[in-house]
């Protein structure tokens, strides 16, 4: 049988950018496809024991962010705010604490909509036997030790190892996030 391999490269460490690689990986593996995620640069934070719980969403530099309130916070006032502003005004992003507030609101919205959180998705990936590979070079660059990262990872690897792993398959696919 021809082997299919999906390799996803996770390079971003914000809450919103942690979702796509983990959703795609856990789903692909559940569909019976051999799947690996290579965590490099800020993507390493997604599998960092401590930092994975502190992933944030940045209102500044993110003009696409909608002014969405968690269902439990929707009332006359928040509905008026949502209808007046397409998103949080960019200038608000520079106010100290705004990134934390927006991250809190996003996490609340995620929870209330029945969307999995990041630790849950990582568990789902491990259960579905997704290979989670940390990038050796960026670990050294950031001073992250293997024991700083979550359990159940593959050995840290470099670009050549990863490319070789992908291209060994008859049908290789790569997604860059």
């Amino acid at each position, binding site marked *: 049988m021809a082997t299919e391999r999906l390799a996803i490269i996770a390079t971003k460490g914000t809450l919103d950018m942690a979702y796509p690689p983990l*959703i795609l990986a*856990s*789903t692909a593996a*559940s*569909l*019976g*496809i051999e799947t690996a995620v290579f965590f490099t640069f800020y993507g390493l934070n997604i599998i960092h024991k401590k930092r994975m719980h502190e992933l944030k969403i940045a209102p500044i530099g993110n003009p696409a962010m909608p002014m969405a309130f968690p269902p439990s916070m929707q009332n006359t006032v928040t509905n008026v705010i949502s209808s007046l502003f397409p998103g949080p005004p960019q200038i608000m992003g520079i106010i100290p604490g705004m990134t934390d507030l927006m991250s809190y609101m996003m996490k609340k919205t995620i929870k209330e*909509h*029945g*969307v*999995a959180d990041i630790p849950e998705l990582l568990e*789902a990936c491990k*259960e*579905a036997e997704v290979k989670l590979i940390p990038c050796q070079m960026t670990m050294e660059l950031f001073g992250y030790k293997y024991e700083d990262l979550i359990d159940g990872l593959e050995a840290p690897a470099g670009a050549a190892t990863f490319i070789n792993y992908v291209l060994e398959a008859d049908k290789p696919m790569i997604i860059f996030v």
Partner: protein
Amino acid sequence: MATITPDKTLDASGLNCPLPVLKTKKAMEELQSGQVLEVITTDPGAKADIPAFCNRTGHQLLETVEEGGKIIFYLRKK
């Protein structure tokens, strides 16, 4: 109303992408070949995702029932 009697029921109500598919895969592992799994979901995305899951994995989608905001799937394990 569906006329199929499932061997196992998975209630994935209130869960969103990708959880219904992940939980369906896990529930399928507990069944024997030929047995039927009932999956109850409220995620509109599941309408396309569960058939795609069946298409990839070879399980047979016997029936899809929509009632009162719920989408219920009957899957026969390959």
